[in-house]
C-alpha cells in the first residue's frame, strides 16, 4: 500500500526507546523464556475460551443423533459418528435448501447493510467534522442508536413496521413488513443501517480529526474545491480507519442474529441468517448439524476477514503502521540512540532521586 498515513501526534517525537528491530538480534535465551511465561496465561485463557469450543464444535459436527423410537416409544439414545455427512447435507435436499437460502441471506444483508452504512457513516462523519454550534450535542446524539441494545431496537422497529404502524402511516401504504417477502428484508436493512451507521461515522470521524488542517489549507490555496478535497485528501487519508471500520462491521453483519429474530421472527425464510439457522437446529436438539452450520459460518467469517486483510490491506492491529514508522525512524533512532540513552539515564536518575 502506497498511502502514507499521518502518524499519530507524538509517535515520531519523544519516543525514548525505539521498539523491536534494534534489539531483535541480541535476545538472550532467558528473555525468550520470560516472554513465553508472560504470554502463557493469555494463551491458556485463549485456548480455553476459543480453541476448545472451536475444536469441540468441529468434533460435534461429525456426529449425528439417531432419532429413532424403540418399541415402547422411547428415544434410542445413540449418537453415531457420521464423518462429513452433516457437511454433505448442507448442499442437498431440504436442509441444503435452507442452508443455501440462509447463506444467501447472510451475504445479501452483509453486502447491502455494510455498503449503506459506509456511505451514511461517511456523510455523518463529514457533517460532524465541521465546526458548528451544538457539534458535541450532535456527536453524542448520533451515538444513541448504537447504544440501544439490538433486541430493544428490534422491538422498536417492529412497532414501527407493524401493519398499522408508523411506517405504513407515513408512507400511506399497506405493506406487510413483518410477513415473508422482500419487504421484510428491507425492514431489516433499514433497522440495521439505522443502528450501525453511527459506528462507522464515529470511527471515520476519529480518522478525519488527525488530518492536519494545513493540508486542506494548501489545497485551498491550490484552488481545490470541496469535492476535490474530499476525493484527494479526506478519503485517502481516512482510508485505513475506514477499512478497519468496514471490516468490523462486515464480521458483525455476517453473524447477524438478534435483529431479524426480534424484528421479523424466527423461521421466516426471507430473513433467516446462518446464525439463526444454527440456533434453530440446536433448538431441535440436532447438535451435529447445528455445529456444522456454525463451523461453516466460522469458516465464512474467517475467509472474509483474511481476504479483507490480505487484499484490501486493512490494518487491524496497527502492525503495518508500526513497521512503516520503525523503518522511517530506525536511522534517526540509530543516530539518536546514544543521545536518548543518555537522556533516559539522566531522567531515570532524576526519578530515582525524586522517589528517594
Amino acid at each position, binding site marked *: 500500500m502506497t498511502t502514507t498515513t499521518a502518524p499519530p501526534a507524538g509517535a515520531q517525537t519523544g519516543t525514548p526507546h525505539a521498539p523491536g528491530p534494534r534489539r531483535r538480534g541480541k535476545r538472550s535465551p532467558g528473555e525468550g523464556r520470560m516472554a513465553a*511465561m*508472560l504470554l*502463557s*496465561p493469555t494463551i*491458556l*485463557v485463549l*485456548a*480455553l475460551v476459543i480453541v*476448545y469450543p472451536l475444536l*469441540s464444535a468441529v468434533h460435534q459436527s461429525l456426529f449425528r443423533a439417531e*432419532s429413532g*423410537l424403540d418399541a*415402547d*416409544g*422411547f*428415544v434410542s*439414545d445413540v*449418537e453415531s459418528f457420521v464423518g462429513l455427512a452433516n457437511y454433505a447435507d448442507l448442499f442437498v435436499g*431440504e436442509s441444503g435448501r435452507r442452508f443455501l437460502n440462509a447463506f444467501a441471506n447472510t451475504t445479501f444483508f452483509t453486502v447491502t447493510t455494510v455498503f449503506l452504512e459506509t456511505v451514511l457513516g461517511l456523510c455523518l462523519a463529514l457533517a460532524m467534522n465541521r465546526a458548528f454550534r451544538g457539534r458535541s450535542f450532535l456527536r453524542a446524539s448520533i451515538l444513541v442508536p448504537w447504544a440501544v441494545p439490538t433486541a430493544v431496537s428490534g422491538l422498536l422497529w417492529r412497532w414501527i413496521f*407493524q*401493519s*398499522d404502524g408508523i411506517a405504513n402511516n407515513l408512507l400511506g401504504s*399497506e405493506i*406487510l*413488513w*413483518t*410477513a*415473508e417477502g422482500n419487504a421484510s428484508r428491507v425492514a431489516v436493512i433499514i433497522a440495521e443501517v439505522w443502528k450501525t451507521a453511527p459506528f462507522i461515522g464515529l470511527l471515520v470521524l476519529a480518522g478525519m480529526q488527525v488530518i492536519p488542517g494545513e493540508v486542506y489549507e494548501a489545497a485551498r490555496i491550490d484552488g481545490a474545491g470541496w469535492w476535490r478535497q474530499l476525493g484527494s485528501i479526506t478519503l485517502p487519508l481516512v482510508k485505513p480507519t475506514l477499512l478497519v471500520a468496514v471490516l468490523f462491521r462486515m464480521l458483525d453483519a455476517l453473524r447477524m442474529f438478534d435483529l431479524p429474530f426480534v424484528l421479523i*421472527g424466527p*423461521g*421466516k425464510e426471507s430473513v433467516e441468517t446462518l446464525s439463526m439457522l444454527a440456533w*434453530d437446529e440446536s*433448538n*431441535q*436438539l440436532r447438535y451435529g448439524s447445528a455445529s456444522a452450520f456454525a463451523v461453516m459460518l466460522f469458516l465464512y467469517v474467517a475467509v472474509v476477514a483474511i481476504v479483507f486483510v490480505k487484499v484490501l490491506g486493512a490494518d487491524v492491529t496497527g502492525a503495518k503502521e508500526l513497521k512503516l514508522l520503525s523503518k522511517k525512524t530506525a536511522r534517526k533512532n540509530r543516530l539518536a540512540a546514544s543521545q536518548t540513552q543518555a537522556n533516559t539515564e539522566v531522567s531515570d536518575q532524576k526519578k530515582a532521586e525524586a522517589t528517594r
Partner: protein
Amino acid sequence: MRQRRRTWQTLLATTASLTVAAVALTGCGGTATDAKSTPKAAAASFEGKGPINYVSNRDASGAANKTIEEWNAAHPEEKVTFIELPDSADQQRQQLIQNAQIKSDTFSVLNLDVVWTSEFAANKWILPLPADAVPTDKMIPATVNAATYRDSLVGAPYYTDGALFYFRSDLLQAAGIAAPPKTWDEMKTACKAILALPEAAGMSCYTGQFDKNEALTVNFSEAVASAGGTVVDADGKPTVNTPEAKEGLNLLVDGFKDGLFPSDAITYLEEQGRRAFQDGKLVFMRNWPFLHASLSATDGSSKVNGKFNITSIPGTDGPGVSTLGGRSLAISPFTPNKATALEFVKFFTSEEQAQKRLALSSRAPVYASLFEDPAVVAKRPFFPTLLTSLNNAQPRPKVVQYGATTKAIQEEAYAAITGAKDTDTALKDMQAKLTELTK
C-alpha cells in the same frame, strides 16, 4: 533481582493454577460424554424425602406461590423452592432439556407445556406417574390426554386453555341475526349481512393468528380438526394428505383469497388481533380467553366493551374443535427426593388447591366442576363457554420431535395461506416432512 524472582514465582503459580483449571474443565467435559453413553435407569419407585425445587414459568398472579407457601408451612422438612424460568417458552424448554441432558438434580418438579409432553417422556426426562396419582376422572378428558404418553400418565394436569370465538353481538343484532354462527358457512352469510350495514363500514369479517409462529400451528390444527380431520392420528402417524385436512386448510386459504380476513392478518398474533377487534375493525375473532378482560375494560381503552360476546369456534358442519393449551407438572428422574416430589405434585394439582388459586389467577383449572361454580362464573363470565370449548378440544400433534413438527406445519401452512403454494402441494409437502419426523 529479588523483585524479579518474585515475579517469576507469581507467573509460575498463575500458569500452574490455570493449567489445573483447564484440566479440570476438560475432565468435566469427559464425564458428561461418558454419562451420555450409559443406558438410562428407569426409576419406577418414588423414594426419598427432602427439599425439592419446582421449576416453572412465571406466575404473575402469585397464586402458585401461595400454594407452595401452604405446602412449606405443613412440610418444614420437605421445603419446595420456586425456580422461575424465562418468559419465552423456547428458552424454558431449552433450560429444562439442558438440565435433563446433564442429569442435574436441581430441577425436581417440572412445569411442562402440553406440547412438550411426548418429547420429555420419550427421552425419559420425566417419570411415568402411578395410576392413582391424580384424580383423572374428575378432570377434563382432553387435559389428561395431553399429559399422557403411550397410555401412561406422565404429567399431572395443572391448568388448561382453549379457543374462544369472540363476536360483535351488537352488529349481529343490528343485522337481525338471532344466534352466533356455528359453522364457517353461517359465519360467511352473517358477515355478508353485517358488512352491508352502514355502521360496519371498513370492517373485516374474521381473524385468527396467522403469523409464522406456534399460533399458526394452533389455527391450522383447529381448522383441520373442525373439518373432521387430524394432523397426526392416534398411532402418531401424520394424516394431512386427507380430504378433511384439505378442507380445513382451504378454510384459511379461501379466507384470505375472498377477503374474509383482513389482508394484514398474515402478520397477526394474539395481540394484533386483539387490537383490531378492540378498535372495532372485526366482526369475529378466534382467540384465547385471557383477552376477555381487556376487551371488556370499561376505562375507554376498549371500543367494544359490552358489545361483544363469546361462543365456541365454528366448524364445517357444527361447532369447531379447539386445540388445547395449558401446562402439567412432571417429575424429573434425576431428583433424589422422588417421594416428596410426588406428594407435592398431588398436593399442587388437587381440586382444593385449584379452587384456592382461582381467587387470584385467571388460568383455567382442569377440574370441570370448578367451571360451573356460580361464584367463579360471576368473576370470570367466559368460563362456561370455555368449558364447552375444552370438552370438545383436541391436543396439538402428540409427537416426540414437536419442535421440528410445528416448524414444518408452520412452513407449509404459511406457504398455502400466502399463496406461495397451492393447498395440495403444501399438504403433500407437509405430509412428507411429518412422515420423516415421526418415523
